[in-house]
C-alpha cells in the first residue's frame, strides 16, 4: 500500500507549486510497470488532499503501457508486468516504457 506515499507526494508537489491558489485538476502519468495501482492512488489522493490547496481537485491518470526491447533480437515486446518473453524465446528484455511515475501538470482555479 505504498500508494498512500505516492498520493501524498503528489499532493505535496502540487500544493508547493500552487502558490496559494486552489488546484482544480491534477494529471499524472503512471506506467503499467511502475508497481503502482492507479485505483489505489485515486483512493488515497482524496484523503491526502484534505485541508490542502489540492482538496477537491479532479485526478486524471494517464496509464502508459509497458514496452520492452529484446536484447537478443531487438524486437519490441508489450508487457503488463516486468516480466515476459520475446517472440524469439528470449526473456532478456530491456524495459523502455511503462516505468513512468510523474506529475505531468495541474490546473489552478
Amino acid at each position, binding site marked *: 500500500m505504498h500508494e*498512500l506515499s*505516492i498520493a501524498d*507526494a503528489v499532493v505535496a*508537489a502540487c500544493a508547493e*507549486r500552487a502558490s496559494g491558489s486552489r488546484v482544480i*485538476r491534477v494529471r499524472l502519468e503512471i506506467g503499467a510497470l511502475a508497481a503502482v495501482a492507479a485505483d489505489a492512488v485515486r483512493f*488515497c489522493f482524496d484523503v491526502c488532499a484534505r485541508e490542502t490547496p489540492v482538496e477537491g481537485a479532479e485526478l486524471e491518470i494517464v496509464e502508459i503501457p509497458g514496452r520492452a526491447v529484446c536484447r537478443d533480437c531487438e524486437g519490441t515486446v508489450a508487457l503488463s508486468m516486468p*516480466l515476459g518473453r520475446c517472440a524469439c524465446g528470449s526473456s532478456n528484455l530491456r524495459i523502455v516504457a511503462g516505468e513512468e511515475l510523474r506529475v505531468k*501538470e495541474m*490546473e489552478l482555479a
Partner: protein
Amino acid sequence: MCTTCGCSAPDQVAYTDPRTGAHSHGDGHIHTHGDPHGHLHFPDHHHDHAADGCGRTIALEQDILAKNQLAAERNRGWLAGREVLAINLMSSPGAGKTSILERTIRDRQVAAPIHVLEGDQATANDAERIRSAGAPVLQINTGTGCHLDADMVSRGLRQLDPGRGSMVLIENVGNLVCPALFDLGERARVVIMSVTEGEDKPIKYPHMFHACELMLINKIDLLPYVRFDVERCIAYARQANSDLRVLRVSAETGEGMDAWYAWLLGHFSVAKSRENARRRNGTGTLDPSGQAAPSGA
C-alpha cells in the same frame, strides 16, 4: 491516512537504540506529509496555457518520487564520503533476513565492521537479536508504514553513525511489494527467498525481483523436507530479471554463506576504490546508479 496499511505520518516512525531503549520520533523534517519545512524546489517550468479557458495549467513534469530520490542520493553521497557500503535487504516476512544478518555478524568473515538498520512496523525484537550477535544496530519502527524510505534511512544513518570503511546492512520491512519502489541510497539491493515459500514468488511479485541484483535462496538445509524446485524458482526469477545473480544459502547451517560474504566484500572493495579514485581526482561524486559489478563470488 489509510487505516489498513498505508504509510505513516512522520511522527509515527520511531527510532530505537536497543542498548539504551532510547527512542525518538520523526520530527517535521523526516517525511513530507504537507510539511511546511520541506524546502525542496524544482525547476520552474510553469507557464500559462491561454487556450485552457478559465483555469491556469501548470506543467510540472516532476517525478512523483523525486523527494525520495533526492534524499536517497544525499544518503548515497554521505555513505560514499565515509566509504561505507550500504545494502538493502528485502523479502517477505519470515524468509530469514534477520537470521542471515545474525550469521553474517557472528561468522566474522566480512573484514569490515557491520552496522544494521532494522525496519519493522513494530517491536525492537530484531534489533535485540542483532545486538546479541554483536553489531551496532538501530531499530526503525514504521508504525503502519509498509516500507523504509530514504528519509527514514537518512535519520537512521545519522543516529547509527557508522565509522569510515564500515558496512551498513539495511533490513527493510518484510514485504515483497512496496519496498521495491523506494531507493534508500544503497549500493545494491538483495532479495531473499526461502525454500518454504512458493517457488513461483518471483513471478507473483516480479517488481521486487526486477529491482534487485542478487537473490539469496535461504533455508536450503530444509530442501529434503519441502517440495521446492530450486531450478524452477531461479528460472522464474530470471524472467523478471535476466541479470539476477543467485546464491543458495542456509543461515542455519552456514552452507553457501561464503559466497554471500564474497559478494559483500566484492561490493565493498568497489565502494572503497571508487571513493579513493574520487579523492585522487578531486572530482564529483560516485556513480549514483552503483552498477559496478563486484569482483568477488
